[in-house]
């Protein structure tokens, strides 16, 4: 942690919003992108990232500076995302992409398909969409490590600190997660075909 970050943290701990905004500037994009890949929805990722920074602001007084500030922010980010995913599991949130089943059979959702969602505008590429969908099918644990390691590029050591897991656990979890993702993507044979990806 450099002197400037430390000074900003101290000011932010006193409630200084401007100092807090300066402090989080470098983390905002990454936090939003982690949320986007974990949750899989542009609008919700916006809300989640906002929630992350509010919680960081609220609990800054409890930040003991034993870990790096960045690690602490990313830990809160993954925790907020996991909380949201668990909440959804309980509520059975219907994805806007899914069809709704009724007693009379399957009915199409009301949202117009030809109106591109912000997410679709941001990511037109078919392959990327398929990869995102595959990541969304992973378990919470696997999704977390795939997002942190293969999308965000964190080291094994950093992931161990963010998830508060022993490094050995992280290593085996990453391997299992990649195999699981490969299994999901194997259904789209063209993706793992050598000619397609390069």
């Amino acid at each position, binding site marked *: 942690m450099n002197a400037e970050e430390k000074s900003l943290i101290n*000011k932010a*701990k*006193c*409630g*200084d*919003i401007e100092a*807090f*905004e300066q402090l989080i500037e470098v983390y*905002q*994009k990454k936090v*939003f*992108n982690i949320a*986007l*890949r974990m949750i899989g929805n*542009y609008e919700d990722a*916006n809300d989640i*990232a*906002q929630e992350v*920074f*509010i*919680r960081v*602001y*609220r*609990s800054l*007084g*409890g*930040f*003991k500076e034993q870990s790096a500030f960045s690690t602490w922010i990313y*830990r*809160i980010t*993954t*925790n907020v995302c*996991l*909380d949201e995913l668990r909440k959804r599991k309980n509520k059975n949130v219907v994805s806007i992409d899914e069809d709704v089943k009724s007693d009379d059979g399957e009915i199409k959702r009301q949202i117009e398909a030809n109106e591109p969602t912000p997410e679709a505008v*941001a*990511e037109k590429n078919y*392959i*990327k969409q398929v*990869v995102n969908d595959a*990541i969304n099918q992973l378990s*919470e644990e696997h999704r977390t490590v795939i997002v942190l390691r*293969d*999308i965000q*590029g964190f080291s*094994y050591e950093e992931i161990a600190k963010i*998830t508060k*897991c022993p490094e050995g656990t992280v*290593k085996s979890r*990453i*391997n299992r997660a*990649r*195999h699981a*993702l*490969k299994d999901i*993507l*194997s259904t789209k044979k063209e*993706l*793992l075909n*050598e000619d397609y*990806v390069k």
Partner: protein
Amino acid sequence: MKKCREINELMSLYIDNQLDDSACTEFEKHINACDSCREELNRLIKVIELCRNVDEIELPEGFREELHQKLVAEKEKLYKQYRGTNLLNKYVKICSTIAACLILSFFAGRFIANNYFLPAKHDESRQSAELTSMQQHDAAGAAENAALNVESFSETEEEMTFSIAVDDGNQLSGEEIPDTSRHTNANERSSGAMLLNTVPVNNKNINIKFKVNNIADAQAQIERIEEFAINNGAEISDYISPCFVEGKYDEMTKEAVDIDVTAKANVLYLKVQDDKYGEFIDLLKSNFSNLNIEVGDLETKDCTEIFDELNTQLQVLDKRIEELEKRKEVSDPDELNRLKRERKVIWDKMERLQLDSNYTFITVELRTE
């Protein structure tokens, strides 16, 4: 040679260069000899490539603005909740003090009835009366807050539970959450000190210097600035924050600090609510642009440590007062009175620190040179 299953488990470590030389050689030996493992490894590498090609998306439009508004609201909420809980705690303290006083009065009455009149008891009753009237103002506010803030009070606890749980970072596996929060909640519910930690207690000060031609001119200007300040959202402060008087900050926990703000005729002490501060300084600058204005840096001092230390002292005093009052006969009424006076001083200091956190103090100085 290693079995395919073992090789399978080492694939990610191999891809990420986490294997040592000998393990790496053995791994490659197997891969070169085993078609199915080689294919599996290639598929895994492709999966990783696909993930790495996922684009980083820009922040949504208006993200920062939305967050800023939420942060401002959050700051306000934290402060209100804190005031609510603090006043509620204080209210409980006042109630217990009043109850203790009633019990004391009851015993005092019995002593008087039995002609065991002790002059010291008068002091005690007077002290109680003083305390009670002094606290009536707070008690009224507290009662109101107590009624209004029952919901926000429990919210505060929930939030604290959350922030502690986050700091522990133990939320990752689903099974851990309920246990962690229950444990933390039970531990922290009784601790006032933890609640204090979330609330920013700070003091802010800024010095503004004007240049005038002579003393008579200075006094006339001071009056003009004073009038201007009052009309534009500032208040005349009858004290300046001890945090910005050399040496006084450290003394604050030890003894009462009173600063004579009337000592200098060419100095004006103002305070402005934080949200009006920027606008006020701009107005001041533009309105008095003919005077050579020098606006110093805004200094912020974190008073949380002092606040916490005062709170600790308060708890020690509460305990000692409670112990003394529990005894059937007050063996040392002078000591009890002294402790109560000490406690009042600490209450006042804490109150002042909290209230000052909402303001920016401005010292306006007019110089003739």
